[in-house]
C-alpha cells in the first residue's frame, strides 16, 4: 500500500494545482505544460521506448490540428469531431514512412521524418482548402461547450490532464505488454532480438503508429485552445524539436520523462521570455540554449535519470529503470 502513497499525493497536487495557483496566466501555463507533455509523451513511445528518433513528428501534430480546424471551418462542426479523422490520417502517414525506413538504421528514419514533415508543410502552405498560408481558424465565440473554446484555462487544464493520464496509461500498458518486451530487447541489441524471433520492424512500426495517433490528438487540442492553426504553428519544424527536447531533457524512455521535461522547459521558456524577451536582444534564447547544452553535456539521459539516481540511494529496492536502455549508443 505504501507504494501508492507517493503517486496519490502527486496526483492530488497536480489536480489541485489550478485551484492553488489561480491567476489566469498561471492556470494557462499549467495547461500548456500538460499539453506539451501529452505531445512529448506521445513522441516518447517511438523516440524513447522504441529508440527511433523522429524529427518530423510535427506532421502528426499538424494533422490533428488541421483536422480539428477543418471540421469547423468547412463543415461547421465542433472541432472535436475532426479528431478521429486526424488520427486516421496520422497513422496512415506513419505507416507510409515507417514501412520502408524502420528496417534501416536510425539516421535514415530520422531524415525521412524531416523530409515528410517539410513536404507536408509545403503542400499545405499551397493548398487553399486548408487555408494556405493564412491558416484555419476555429470558433471565435463558442456555440456549445463541445466547441471547447473557453476563456479561462481551467477547463483546458483538466481536459489535458485527463488526456495526459490516458496517454501515460496507454504507454504504461504498452511497456508492460509483449510489445514493450520486444522493444526493450530491440533497444538492447536489435540483432540479438531478431535472432530470437522478435518481429523487430513490425514492433517498431506499431510503436510509431501508436505514437502518431496520440500526437495528432495533442495537435487537435492545441488548435482548439489557440483557436487557430497555420503552417508555421501547426507544421513547423520547431514543434518537432520541442517535443523531442522535452522528452530528452526529462528522460526519454521513461514514463514520466516527458512530463518532467515539459514542466521544466515550458516555464523556463516563459520566464526567460518574460524577463529578457522585452529587451529584444535575444537573450531568452541564449539562456535557453545554454541550459540545454549544459543538460545534454552533463546529464544526457535526462533530468529524470538524475533524480532517479539520487533517490535510488534512499529507497529499499534498487531501481531497474527503463533508462538503462535509453543511454545505449545506436
Amino acid at each position: 500500500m505504501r507504494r501508492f502513497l507517493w503517486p496519490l499525493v502527486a496526483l492530488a497536487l497536480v489536480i489541485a494545482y489550478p485551484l492553488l495557483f489561480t491567476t489566469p496566466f498561471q492556470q494557462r501555463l499549467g495547461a500548456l505544460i500538460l499539453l506539451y507533455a501529452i505531445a512529448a509523451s506521445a513522441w516518447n513511445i517511438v523516440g524513447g521506448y522504441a529508440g527511433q528518433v523522429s524529427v518530423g513528428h510535427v506532421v502528426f501534430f499538424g494533422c490533428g490540428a488541421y483536422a480539428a480546424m477543418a471540421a469547423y471551418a468547412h463543415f461547421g462542426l465542433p472541432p472535436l469531431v475532426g479528431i478521429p479523422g486526424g488520427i486516421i490520417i496520422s497513422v496512415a502517414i506513419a505507416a507510409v514512412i515507417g514501412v520502408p525506413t524502420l528496417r534501416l538504421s536510425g539516421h535514415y528514419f530520422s531524415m525521412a521524418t524531416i523530409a515528410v514533415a517539410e513536404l507536408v508543410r509545403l503542400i499545405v502552405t499551397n493548398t487553399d482548402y486548408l487555408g494556405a498560408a493564412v491558416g484555419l481558424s476555429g470558433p471565435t465565440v463558442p456555440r456549445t461547450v463541445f466547441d471547447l473554446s473557453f476563456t479561462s484555462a481551467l477547463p483546458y487544464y483538466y481536459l489535458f490532464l485527463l488526456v495526459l493520464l490516458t496517454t501515460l496509461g496507454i504507454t504504461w500498458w504498452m511497456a508492460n505488454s509483449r510489445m514493450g518486451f520486444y522493444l526493450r530487447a530491440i533497444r538492447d541489441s536489435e540483432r540479438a532480438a531478431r535472432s530470437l524471433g522478435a518481429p523487430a520492424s513490425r514492433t517498431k512500426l506499431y510503436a510509431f503508429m501508436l505514437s502518431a495517433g496520440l500526437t495528432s490528438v495533442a495537435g487537435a487540442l492545441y488548435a482548439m485552445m489557440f483557436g487557430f492553426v497555420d503552417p508555421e504553428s501547426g507544421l513547423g519544424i520547431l514543434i518537432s524539436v520541442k517535443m523531442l527536447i522535452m522528452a530528452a531533457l526529462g528522460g526519454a524512455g521513461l514514463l514520466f520523462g516527458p512530463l518532467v521535461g515539459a514542466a521544466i522547459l515550458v516555464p523556463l521558456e516563459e520566464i526567460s521570455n518574460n524577463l529578457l524577451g522585452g529587451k529584444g536582444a535575444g537573450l531568452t534564447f541564449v539562456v535557453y540554449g545554454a541550459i540545454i547544452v549544459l543538460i545534454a553535456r552533463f546529464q544526457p539521459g535526462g533530468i529524470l535519470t538524475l533524480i532517479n539516481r539520487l533517490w535510488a540511494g534512499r529507497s529499499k529496492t534498487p531501481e531497474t529503470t527503463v533508462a538503462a536502455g535509453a543511454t545505449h549508443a545506436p
Partner: protein
Amino acid sequence: MSLILVQVIVGGLLLGAVYALFSSGLTLIWGMMNIVNFAHGDFVMLGMYVAFMVWTVLGVGPFVGAPVAALVLATLGIIVYFGLIRSVMKGPMLAQILGTFGLALLLRYSVFWGFGANFMTLPDNIVGGTFDVFGIRIQASRLLAGVVALLVTLGLHLLLTRTSLGSKMLAVAEDATAAQLMGIRPDTMQAIAWAIAAGATGIAGALIATFFYIAPTVGETLGIVAFVTVSLGGFGSVPGALVAGLLIGVIESVSAYEIGAIYKDIAVYSLFLCFLWFRPQGLMGKM
C-alpha cells in the same frame, strides 16, 4: 534549348556547388563520428560574420576572410568538441540532437545579441562583378564559391584517402577500439576531424557572404539544405555531397523556372524521399 534555360541550369550548378561547399563539413563528421550536428547551419552563419568583420576591420575581401574564418571556426570546433561533443558522442542520437540544438540556439542568439537583427551584406563587387560568357551571366562571387567547393571536396577526399592522417581518421571511424589498439588516439583524431570540418564550414560561410545576405537566422535556412544534401549524397561521402549538391541545385533551379518557385522545395523533398525508399544510402554512401 533556349538561352534562358541554359542560364537556369548554369545558375543551378553554381547554386548546387555552394550547397556542396557548406555540406562537406557536415558529411565529414556525420560519416566519421556518427554525429548529427543541428548547429551546422549556424557554423556557416558564423563564417559569414567572420568574413564581415574582416571586411569591416581590415577592408579586405574573402581571400583573407576565408582563411581567417577557417581558423576561427576550427578553433571554435575544437572548443565545442571538447566541451560538448565528446560527451554526447557516447550517448544516443537523442542526446546529440539535444546538445547540438542547444548549441545552435546559443550561437545564433549570441550573434543576434552582438550584432543585432539587421541584415548585412558585403559590397557587391568585392570579388568582381558579373561577366558574360556567350550570353550567360555568371557572378564572379558564385563562380569563386563553386571553384572552392571543388577544391575543398578534392582536398578533403585526398586527405582522407591519401594521407596517413586521413587513414588514421578513417580507422577511428571504422572501429575506435581497434584503432586504439593500433596506437591511434581516437580522441585526437576525432577532434582533428571536427576541427577540419568546422574550418571547411567557415570557408563556406565566408564565401557565401559575398553574394548572400548576412543575418543571425541564416543558419535555419541553410541547415536543413545541408542535411538533405548530406543524406542524398550519402553520410560520410564528401564526393557524394558534391554530386548531391549539384543535383539539388539544378533540380531546384529548373523546377522553380518551369513549374514555379513554390514547387522547387517540394521537388527536392520528393526526390529525396524517393531515394530514401529505393536507395537509402544515397548517391555514393555505403550502407
